[in-house]
């Protein structure tokens, strides 16, 4: 029963940590818009965490630049299990217009497995809400799998 309580809670209280890996700020603004009264992601228990140690969902925006690559990897490692990585916008998936630049090392899935992608440039806040909701369900799934092992 206790285990089930934890499993259910996992889906209901996903805390987000946002990493900007060289984004143009468009997606970042939209992510913040998700927390505003209009979209209010706190309805689903979402909360912006200040440190990767508290996070369940890591939201990465931006193509991974050579400057941010090392920091990104280190920060992703520091997130405790179970964790879900969400890519926000086109850049982390494909580097978008920056692909081929000398300073871009991306895309993100070179370095880690991306669980959920939210497309759009930038994505509409509704899409982000939807993506995060899916990520929360995935989190619960991962938690159950980990608990079974």
């Amino acid at each position, binding site marked *: 029963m206790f285990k089930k309580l934890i499993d259910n809670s996992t889906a209901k209280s996903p805390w987000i940590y946002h990493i900007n890996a060289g984004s143009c700020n468009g997606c970042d603004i939209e992510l913040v818009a998700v927390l505003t009264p209009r979209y209010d992601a706190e309805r689903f228990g979402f909360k912006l965490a200040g440190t990767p140690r508290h996070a369940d969902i890591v939201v990465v925006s931006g193509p991974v630049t050579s400057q*941010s690559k*090392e*920091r*990104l990897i*280190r920060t992703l*490692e*520091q997130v405790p299990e179970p964790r879900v990585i969400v890519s926000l916008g086109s850049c982390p998936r494909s580097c978008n217009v920056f692909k081929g630049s000398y300073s871009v090392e991306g895309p993100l899935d070179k370095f880690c497995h991306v669980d959920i992608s939210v497309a759009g440039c930038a994505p509409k806040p509704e899409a982000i809400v939807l993506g995060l909701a899916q990520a929360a369900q995935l989190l619960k799934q991962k938690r159950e799998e980990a608990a079974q092992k």
Partner: protein
Amino acid sequence: MIQHLPILAIMTYFLGAFLTTLLGHNSKSVRWFLVMLASVASFVMMCLLIKPIFLDGGIIGYWMGGRAPEAGYAIGIGLEVDALSLFFGLLVTFTVLLSAVYSIKYISRDDAQDKYYTLFLMLAGGVLGLVLSGDLFNIFIMVEIMTFAAVALTAYRNWAEGSLESAFKYLAVGSIGSSMILAGTIMVYSQVHTLNLAQISALLAGQGLTNTTVFAFALLFIGFGVKAFIVPFHPIAADAYMTAPASISMVFSGMVNKAGVYGMIRLVYVVFQIMDVKSVNYLIVLLGTITMFIGVTSALNQHDFKRLLAFHSISQIGYVITAIGLATSLGIAGGLYHAMNHTLFKGLLFLCAGAVFYSAGTTDLDRLGGLAKRMPQTAAIFLVGAAAISGIPPFNGFASKWVIYQACYEAAAAASGFASIFYAVVTIVGLLVSVMTLASFVKVSQSVFFGQLPDEFDEVKEAPLLMRIPMWIMAACCLLAGLLPGPLSRFALQPAAAATLNIKGYIDTMMGGGYAASQMGDVTPVAELDFSTIGYWQPVAWLVLFVIIMAAVLIVALGSQGARGNKRSTELEKVDGKYATFFGGEHSTYSMVGGSDLFWGLRYNLRHYFGFLSDMHSGVVNDYALWAVTAAAGIILYMFLFL
């Protein structure tokens, strides 16, 4: 046999000092044997006195050479041990014993160890002689022995920066205090033509206060104030504690300043019997409050572990003085309780500082950090000491501070008008000082034991076992003294507080029955002791709590097997970033928040006050002497105006 024990205890120290010089020059083991023998023997002798004095309520009077008073005049030198003396005697011998054990390892790298131990035992003998003595001039002599041994020990590590300087400061300002005591003794003698404390007490009470007596009281009060390092005589203490070896700093704060406190209690309550005079109470409480506040705020400003502890020592003595100045039985009991606790936790903290110095070679708060990983036991002991001094339950500091607040606030309720507001403010300052104490120990723990480990201290080792044993004993005592206030107050504090007020018994023991009544006429009745509020908590409940906490901590520590432990941070980071410190994604580098940078919000707001404090502690001995003399003049003036 029993009545010979006090003088034997004193002589053991002095004999030990003599023999150490004579025999201990070449052989380490002889030296250690002599020192340990002397300290253990004295401690045992003091313990043997517990039964007749604490439990049976007796007072031991002893005339050296059997020179009992003739024709109503005490010509011989007398020792008089009542519960108050024994209380301090026990503190002194206990501190000396632990410090001696600690010194074995701590001093092992220094040269001239025989001189160290000689001076050490001289100091111990001086303080023990002071608290057991029943003779005013003898007290002066013991103060002198104590002061000069202390000065020499301050300069013991004369290769260290500032040690000679601080010894000189101690000598200069300490001499002012000593001469005040001598002058006060002369004044007293000119009035009553005797030097025996009991007889002085009886005669003074009979004659009432004259100008000479008031002057004598003021001088003696200042003299013992200097020895207790109350503000504004405190800067010498800060320097001396910092530069002396840690084992000696512990002795300083454990017994040397207690000697001053003892002198004050003896003077105010027994010899001059003026605890009923409100103006003296106000003065003592005011001095105590200023002392505790200035001590703690100066401590917030320090960069050096031992200097910070020194200021806390001053601050805690302020608590003791405040409580004693309240002149209620609860206040005296609280003051004595806190004096004892101060010996325990401050000694403990000084030993921790010594262990850090022994292992890391420095006590600079801005350079140290993260030592808890290398010295886990020292860190744990330090946390106990820090919790005790900041008054966190269930350690002893909380219990005694509680009694002091209670006493203060009851005094406030009992007084009227301005006095009640004054005592209420004192209570508030006391509580605030406690929080500030906590703050500065947070600073120490962050800058020394936690935080990041600088590379230069990567190879630091835990302190040796011989140094840890006294520390653990003191830590255990801190907890026990906090958990068992009931038995403590019944068997030690109540007898001591009662002895403080039992002036008639004190006089009659020395001068023969009925002497007090014949000289004083109406004998002051022993004040009723009301300890109803001391039974304020249920130790069992706290023991249960402590066990629960320990069990919970154990479960957590065992339960989290997945978490990785104390590997070298640098190695681990190469393989796995997961266990690296979060640094905003950067590779973690050494970027410690320096000890002096903590609390800048506070320091910014109080910058004018802190600036004033810095200006005050100029480090110039002329200034300190000037402060001392000015304060002395002020106190004398106050006494003449209001007594």
